[in-house]
């Protein structure tokens, strides 16, 4: 699903990623571990081009999204991302947070289809071989209603439907992060990227967020998780990547990597954190 080929990222003279090649298959749950400053988060952010890679390719569904010429927004809609700091839109209520992207993308696509149809119609008047119009079987109101229904369904799933109309500033960290997760889910992504989703949470709220991620994993969502929660990594991952100094030093199943690490750096790191 995602092929990463010799991915490099520099900040000025600082080489953060020094050539990463890996493949993420459908249904895999990949957990990236490693010391801070090892480039884990940068790697994750390169997967949906939040950071533009300096060189190399990120091939998502057959398209190299690291290429500056592709419309990255279209591809990002298929990749959900969850941040350490939640990043809910502060000026929007919870339900608006969830609905914003589906509604504005839906309306944008509707508008584009209508404009295209207008030109096709104009062209069809003058030429004998008629072109087919793009079927438009939706409307602004319908898009909004569908997005709202979906948002409420997602809120119900995490048991926060009573918070639909409050602003994020009144929520706890755990609630914010769960809403951030379903905000990403509202776009029906093919893969979810988690950037240390529990690092900014109080210990007692870590559980509720991990439970939700675990549920998604069980449903077969493809995911890439950067985390320091080793227990969670062991339990959820199908593959663990150990990164240090901008390289993947070791990748293996969690059972292998946690009980029988091969690389000396992995051994050293795990002996410190476990």
């Amino acid at each position: 699903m995602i092929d990463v080929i010799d991915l490099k990222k520099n900040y000025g003279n600082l080489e953060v990623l020094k050539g990463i090649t890996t493949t993420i298959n459908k249904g895999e749950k990949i957990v990236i571990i490693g010391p801070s400053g090892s480039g884990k988060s940068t790697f994750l952010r390169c997967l949906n081009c939040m950071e533009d890679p300096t060189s190399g390719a990120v091939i998502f569904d057959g398209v190299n999204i690291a290429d500056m010429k592709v419309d990255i927004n279209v591809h990002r809609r298929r990749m959900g991302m969850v941040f350490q700091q939640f990043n809910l839109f502060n000026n929007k209520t919870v339900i608006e947070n969830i609905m914003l992207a589906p509604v504005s993308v839906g309306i944008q696509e509707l508008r584009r289809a209508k404009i295209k149809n207008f030109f096709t119609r104009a062209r069809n008047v003058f030429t004998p071989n008629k072109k087919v119009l793009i079927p438009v079987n939706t409307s602004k109101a319908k898009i909004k209603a569908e997005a709202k229904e979906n948002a409420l369904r997602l809120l119900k799933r995490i048991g926060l439907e009573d918070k639909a109309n409050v602003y994020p500033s009144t929520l706890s960290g755990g609630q914010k992060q769960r809403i951030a997760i379903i905000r990403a889910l509202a776009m029906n992504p093919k893969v979810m990227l988690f950037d240390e989703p529990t690092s900014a949470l109080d210990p007692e709220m870590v559980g509720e967020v991990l439970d939700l991620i675990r549920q998604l994993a069980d449903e077969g969502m493809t995911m890439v998780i950067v985390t320091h929660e080793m227990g969670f990594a062991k339990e959820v991952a199908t593959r663990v990547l150990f990164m240090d100094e901008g390289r993947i030093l070791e990748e293996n199943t969690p059972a292998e990597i946690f009980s029988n690490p091969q690389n000396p750096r992995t051994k050293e790191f795990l002996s410190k954190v476990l």
Partner: protein
Amino acid sequence: MGNFDKKVEKFWEIFYEHNGYTKVLTGLENTLYIAIVGLAIGIIIGTLIAIVKVLPKYKRIARILDGICTFYVALFRGTPVVVQLLVAYYVALPLLGINMPALNVCVLVFGLNSGAYVSEIMRSGILSVDPGQMEAGRAVGLSYGVTMMKIVVPQAIKNILPTLGNEFIALIKETSVVSFVGAADLYVAFNYIGSNSYEFMVPYLVMAMIYIVLVAIAALLIRVMERSLRKSDRRN
């Protein structure tokens, strides 16, 4: 102070009995019109300039726009507003062959002028919004422009409202120079009363009081607006 009573009487005569108040009302209307519409134009121009200024600069078009905006800000902050008014009314518009009422010229000049100041206010506002907000918008697949207009700018405006209020108040007071190009504002009205009663003490005193009241009302409105915008905030 018997003298003062006489002065008030004289003022009242022109103000009330000789319909001086209609001039004052027109002046008040024009003053507010220039300040409000000018600020609206200023906010639009200022927001656009601020967005250009915070744009990532790896595309050439962004750098060109940035150059234009820098020049614009330098031009309008580098000259007094009176000079801008005079140049616009007596140089630029005649050269372009455009005939425009003085009042509209004033609105335009004050809008352009305030745009230069608002751009810097707005830029600081945009920079004060957590970069995570932009990232989150981009991560769900919204474009830079949509995220900017729907997420970042509304939060920026909330942050800069007190400063924007300052700009509005400054604008109300600055309009007192529009008589340079013959637009009728409060100064023109009270000057008329003064010159007809040969007595300037009371008219100018009343004019000053009207400005104070205007500014007080403006400050109050800004406070109310600020409070309503703060509803998504914990600082109520």
